[in-house]
C-alpha cells in the first residue's frame, strides 16, 4: 500500500480549511455557515490525524476524538440557537440580524 506523503495531507487540509472559511464568508444561511465551520474543524482533525500517523503517536488521534465530541455538542447548541432565532422570524438571513451595531 503506497504511503501518502504528509505534505499531501497538509495541503488537502489547508484546502478544506479555506473552503470552509470562504463558505462561512459567502453564505448567508446560518445552517450553511455552521456546516462550513464544521469543515474547518475537520480540516484541523485531518492535520492531527496525519501527524499522529506520521509520528506513530496516539495523542493526535485522541485529540481528534475530543474535537469530534466537542463538535457534536457545539452543533447541538448552535442549532438550538438558530431554531430559537427562527421561531421569532420568518427566515433567517444573517445579514438581517443586525439590531445591534455601532
Amino acid at each position: 500500500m503506497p504511503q501518502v506523503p504528509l505534505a499531501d495531507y497538509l495541503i488537502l487540509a489547508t484546502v478544506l480549511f479555506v473552503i470552509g472559511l470562504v463558505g462561512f464568508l459567502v453564505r448567508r444561511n446560518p445552517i450553511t455557515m455552521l456546516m462550513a465551520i464544521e469543515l474547518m474543524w475537520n480540516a484541523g482533525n485531518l492535520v492531527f490525524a496525519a501527524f499522529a500517523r506520521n509520528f506513530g503517536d496516539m495523542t493526535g488521534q485522541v485529540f481528534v476524538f475530543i474535537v469530534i465530541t466537542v463538535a457534536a455538542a457545539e452543533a447541538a447548541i448552535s442549532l438550538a440557537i438558530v431554531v430559537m432565532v427562527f421561531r421569532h422570524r420568518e427566515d433567517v438571513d444573517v445579514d438581517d440580524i443586525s439590531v445591534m451595531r455601532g
Partner: protein
Amino acid sequence: MIQSVAIDWNVIAPVVVLVATGLLVLVVDLLSRSAPRQLLYGIGIVGSLAAFAAMLPLRGQELTTFGGAFASDSFSWPFDVLLLLTLTISLALSCLGKAEDGANPGAYAALLIFCTIGGLILAGATTLIGIFLGLEELSLALYVLAGTGYPRRSSQEAALKYVLLGSLASGFLIFGMALLYGSAGSISLAAMSHAAYAGGPLFIGGFALFLVGVAFKLALAPFHLWTPDVYEGSPLAVTAFMAVAVKAAMFAVLARFAYVVFGHDASALVPLWILAILSMIVGNVGAIRQTNLKRLLAFSGIAQAGYLVLALAGVGRGGVATLVFYLAAYAFMNLGAFAVIALIGNGDELHADLSAYRGLAFRRPMVAALMMLFFLSLAGIPATAGFIGKVLLLGQAMGAGPWGVAMAVALIVGTLVSFYVYFQVIWQMFAPADAEAVASDGNAAVSWVAVAAGAVGVLLLGIVPQLLLAHL
C-alpha cells in the same frame, strides 16, 4: 500498552466541588420545579465558596495531575480566585427581581457554574488538549447564556453572533493546535518551547492561528467585533461574567503559553504587541459616544485587554504579578460597575442605557459616588486600583525594548482618550435629570454586597496595593 494515570484528587478538588454543585443545582431544579430561583443561585454561591475553600490548601503549592496535563500551581491560583469571585458576584446579581435567566434558573445557574469550570481548566491546562477542552466548555456554556434573555431580540442576536463567530475562531484554534502538534510532536507546552526555539513554518503558522483563537476570546482588535454586540445583548449578570471571567481565564492561558514557550525569546510575540496597540486605539476610540453602558464597557474591555498585554512584555520580569494585579483591579471595577447597573434597576436591562444615569447624583448620591469610583478607577485616577495597575503595567512595558515603549505610549494616549469616555458617564450623573427619567430605586441587599465588594477592592488595591502585591 495502556498506562494507568494516577489522579490526585486534591489538585482538582475545586473543579470537583463545582461539578457537584452544578449537578446538585440541576437535580434540585428537576425535583422541585417550584423552587425559588434564589435558592438555586444560593446553592451555586455556596458551592462557589466551597470551591474556594477547597483551593485554600493548594495555595503556594506546585502540583500536577493527569500525568502533568493539569496543574495547580502558584501561577493558576490567583486566576482561579478571580474566576470564583466572578461566579459568586454574577450569581448574586442573577438573584435580583428583574434579572433575566430565560425562565429556567436551574439550567442558567448550572451553565454559569460549568463556564467557571471551563475557566479553571484553562488556568491549569499545561497541554493543548486542556486548553481546547477548557475553552470549549467555557464557550459553549456562554453561547447559551448569551441567549437566555431570548424574549429580547438583541439577546437572540447576541447568541447567534457569538456561536457562529466563536466557532469560526475555534476553527482557527484547532487548525493552529494541529500545526503546533505537528511542529513539536507533542501536545504539551513544555515540548513546544523546543519547537519555538527551532522556529520553522509549522510552528510559526500554528502559533499564528492559535493566537487568533485566543485573541478572539480576549476581544483583541481586529478580532473584537463581536464583543459590543454580545455584551449588549446578553443578560446583565452574564455580561458581567463574560467581561471578567473570560478575560481572566484566557490571560492565564496566554501568559502560561508565553512563559513556557517563549521564555527564552519573545520576538515571535511582536504581532501580539501590535494587536494590543490596535485594541487600545479601537477600544478607547470606539467607546466615544456610546449610549449603552454595556456596550461602552465592552469597548472599554477591549482597551483594557490591550493594556493587560503589556504585562507580558519582557516575559520573565515579574510580569505575572502585574498581570494578576491589573486583572484583579479590572475585576473589581467592572464587577462594581455592572453591580451598580443591576442595583439601581433591580437587575433590569433598561438601566444599561446611559440616559438612565442623568441626575443620579441627586437622586441616589451614594450609588452615584460608587459608580463614579468605578469609572475613576477605569480611567486610572490615583487612589484607585486602576491607577496602581497602570503604573505597574507602564513599569513592565518601559523595560521591554521599543515595542514595550510603543505600547506604553499607546496606553498613555489611550488613557487620555478614555478620560473623555469615562468622565462623560460621570458627567451624566451630575446633569439635570430628564422629566421622563426611568425610576432608579432598586435597593436589593444582594446587589449592595456586590457593589461593596467592588468598592472595597478598588479602594484597597488603590490605597494599599501591597496587600495584594506582597502575595504575588
